[in-house]
C-alpha cells in the first residue's frame, strides 16, 4: 500500500507532535504546572497515527487513559489540549475533563477514558450509528493489553461480529498493564488470536513500524466499510514513560527502556525508512521538527495565559436540560 507524499508528511508531523507534546507534558507535570493524573503516550506514536491516518472527522475513535496521542492523531489541536491539561477554560473540554477525559466529538474523538476497556462498547455504538444510517463511517476502539482482559472487550467483539459492525479494535500491547506484565495477566499470550473465538480476523502488528500499522489498518478499514465486519489488531508497542507520571517503574529495567528508546523508536524508524527510500528529504523532516517544537511552545504559552474556568461553571453541562434541578 503506497502512502502518498502529503500523507507521509502529515504522518511524520503527527508522530513528532505526539512525542514533543508528551515530552513537554512530562516536564510541565514535573514542574507542578499540570494537576491530576497524567499517562503519556510517547513511544506508541506509530499506532495512533498509523490507524488515524485512514480516518476522517466522520469516523469515530474511542481512547484510553493514555489518550493524548489518539487526540493528536485524530486532529485535535495542541492548544486546546494543553489548555485542557492545565485545567483552563479554553481547554478542549473547558477544563472539565482533564487528561483522562480529553475529547473532541466534532472530530470523532469520543474521549480518552478513565475506565480500562470502557471505550469498546462506545465504539460499537458509533459503528452502529454508521450502520443504521448507512454513512460508510467506521469506528475504531483503542485499548491496551489490560483492556483486552475486561468483559467489555469480549462483549464488544461479540456484538460487533454478530452485527458485522464497521468497527476496528486496536489493542495497544505495550507489555505492561500498569505494573503487571502481559505475560502474567493475559492467558494464552496471543491477544490477536482471541479474534478467532468471534470468527473475525485477528492480526498481530509491529506497532513500532508505522508502515505495518498503516497497511494492516487499511485492510481492516476496507473490510469494515465493505460491510464485512470488524477486525482485531494487536499492535505490539512500548511506552517510554511509566504507567503514570510519578511511576517509579520498578517492574522494568532502565536497560529495557533505553533499548526501546534508542533501537526501536517508531519515529526514528519511520525517518530512516523514508529518507533511505528517498520518499522524503531529511531537510523537510527537520523543518517539521522545528515547526512542531514551535507549536508545542505556543501551546504551553496559550495554556498558561488562559483563564481558569469560573467557579460557576461547576454546575453547567450536566444535562442538556433539567427542569427544577434539585
Amino acid at each position, binding site marked *: 500500500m503506497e502512502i502518498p507524499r502529503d500523507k507521509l508528511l502529515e504522518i511524520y508531523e503527527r508522530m513528532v507532535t505526539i512525542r514533543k507534546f508528551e515530552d513537554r507534558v512530562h516536564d510541565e507535570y514535573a514542574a507542578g504546572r499540570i494537576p491530576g493524573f497524567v499517562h503519556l503516550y510517547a513511544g506508541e506514536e506509530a499506532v495512533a497515527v498509523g490507524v488515524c491516518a485512514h480516518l476522517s472527522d466522520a469516523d469515530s475513535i474511542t481512547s484510553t487513559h493514555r489518550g493524548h496521542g489518539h487526540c493528536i492523531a485524530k486532529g485535535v489541536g495542541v492548544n486546546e489540549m494543553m489548555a485542557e491539561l492545565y485545567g483552563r477554560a479554553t481547554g478542549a473540554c473547558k477544563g472539565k475533563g482533564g487528561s483522562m477525559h480529553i475529547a473532541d466529538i466534532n472530530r470523532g474523538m469520543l474521549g480518552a477514558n478513565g475506565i480500562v476497556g470502557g471505550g469498546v*462498547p462506545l465504539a460499537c455504538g458509533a459503528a452502529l450509528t454508521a450502520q443504521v444510517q448507512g454513512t460508510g463511517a467506521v469506528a475504531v476502539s483503542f485499548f491496551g493489553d489490560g483492556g483486552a482482559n475486561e468483559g467489555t472487550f469480549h462483549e464488544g467483539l461479540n456484538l460487533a461480529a454478530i452485527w458485522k459492525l464497521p468497527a476496528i479494535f486496536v489493542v495497544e500491547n505495550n507489555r505492561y498493564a500498569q505494573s503487571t506484565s502481559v505475560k502474567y495477566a493475559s492467558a494464552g499470550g496471543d491477544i490477536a488470536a482471541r479474534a478467532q473465538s468471534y470468527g473475525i480476523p485477528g492480526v498481530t502488528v509491529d506497532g513500532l513500524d508505522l508502515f505495518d500499522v498503516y497497511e494492516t489498518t487499511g485492510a481492516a478499514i476496507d473490510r469494515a466499510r465493505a460491510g464485512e465486519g470488524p477486525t482485531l489488531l494487536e499492535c505490539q508497542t512500548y511506552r517510554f514513560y511509566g504507567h503514570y507520571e510519578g511511576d517509579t517503574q520498578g517492574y522494568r529495567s532502565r536497560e529495557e527502556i533505553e533499548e526501546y528508546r534508542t533501537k526501536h523508536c517508531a519515529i526514528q524508524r519511520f525517518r530512516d525508512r523514508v529518507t533511505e527510500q528517498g520518499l522524503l528529504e531529511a531537510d523537510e523532516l527537520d523543518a517539521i521538527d522545528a515547526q512542531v517544537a514551535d507549536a508545542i511552545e505556543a501551546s504551553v504559552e496559550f495554556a498558561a495565559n488562559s483563564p481558569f474556568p469560573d467557579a460557576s461553571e461547576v454546575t453547567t453541562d450536566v444535562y442538556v436540560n433539567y427542569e427544577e434541578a434539585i
Partner: protein
Amino acid sequence: MGEERTMSLGLAIREALHQEMERDASVIIMGEDIVGGAGSDEPGAEDSWGGPMGITRGLVGKFGHNRVRDTPISEAGFIGAAVGAAATGLRPIAALMFIDFFGIPMDQIYNQGAKLRYMFGGKAKVPMVVRALIGAGVNAAAQHSQSLYSIFTHIPGLKVVIPTTPYDAKGLMISAIRDDDPVFFLEHKTLLGEKGPVPEEPYTVPLGVAEIRREGDDVTVVAIAKMVNVALSAAEILEAEGVSVEVIDPRTLSPLDGETILDSVEKTGRLVIVDEDTPRCSLATDIAALAADEAFFSLEAPIKRITAPHTPVPFSPTLENAYIPSQERVVAAIQEVVSV
C-alpha cells in the same frame, strides 16, 4: 365526542414506541429478546417474545431489523453501544429487562453515558432511554424484584422516570425519547396491566413535574411507583375517618419536582413518604431531607417514611407480602402523624 379510549400501561408504552419510531428515523430499539426468536428456524419464531412482557412485539414488522435489534445477553456490550450510538447521532432505546441486571453494564451507565456531556465540556449529548422492569409483587425473588431507582437518581447526568398510569406512561415515554439526556424509564411490573384513558394522538408529559393524584388538607403523602395506588386506597379509608390526605406522585425522580412536594407540606404540615425501595440512602430519605431542610417550620409532626425493610426481596408469598409496604402500614403512619 366518542367514548374515551382506554388501554393498559404496557400497551400505552408500546404505542409511544411506535409513534416515536414513526416520527423520527434516528430512534432505534435494542435489547435481549425484544423481538424474540432470533436465529431460530422455527416457523413463527420471529416476534415470539416482544420483550419479557410482550411490549415490543410488532415493532420489528413495522420498522425492520436495522432499527429493532435483538441483542445477545450482553448488557455491558449493548448498553454501552447505546451510549456510543447516542453520542454519534441516534436516539437509542435500550431494554435492560430487569433493573436488577444493572450491575453488569453499570460502568457504561454511570461512568460513560451519564458523564460524557460534563466531561467533554458540554460538547456531547447522549439522548438515550434505558427501559427496565422494577418492583416486587410477583414472587420473582431477590434478583428480579428490586426497585433501585435511588441508585440512578443519585448519579448526576441521568434522569429517572416512573409512570404509574397509562396516560403518563405514553406521555412520559414520548418525552423520554425526545429528551437529549440519558433517561431511565422504569416500569413497575405489577402496573403494566393497569388500564386507563390514553389519547390516540402523540402527546408529552413533561419530565420534572409531579402530579397531585388526590387533593387533601391534613397530610401529604408522597408515594413512588406502585405505592401511589397503596397511598390512594389508604386515603380512601381515612376519608371515612375524616382525615383529608393529599397524594403526590412525583412521576420523575430526577428531575424531582420538589416545589410541588414542598408547597403541599407547607399546606398540610405533615409528610408521609411511601417507597417500595429499601430505606437507606433512598428516595424516601432524600424527600424527607428535602422537607426537613426547606419546610421545617411548616411541619407539625415528625416526617414518616414507610419503606421496605433493609433486606433483599424474599421469595415466599408470605415473606414478600411482609416486605412490600402495605396499606395498613400507610394508614397507621398517617393516623400517627395526624394525631400529633
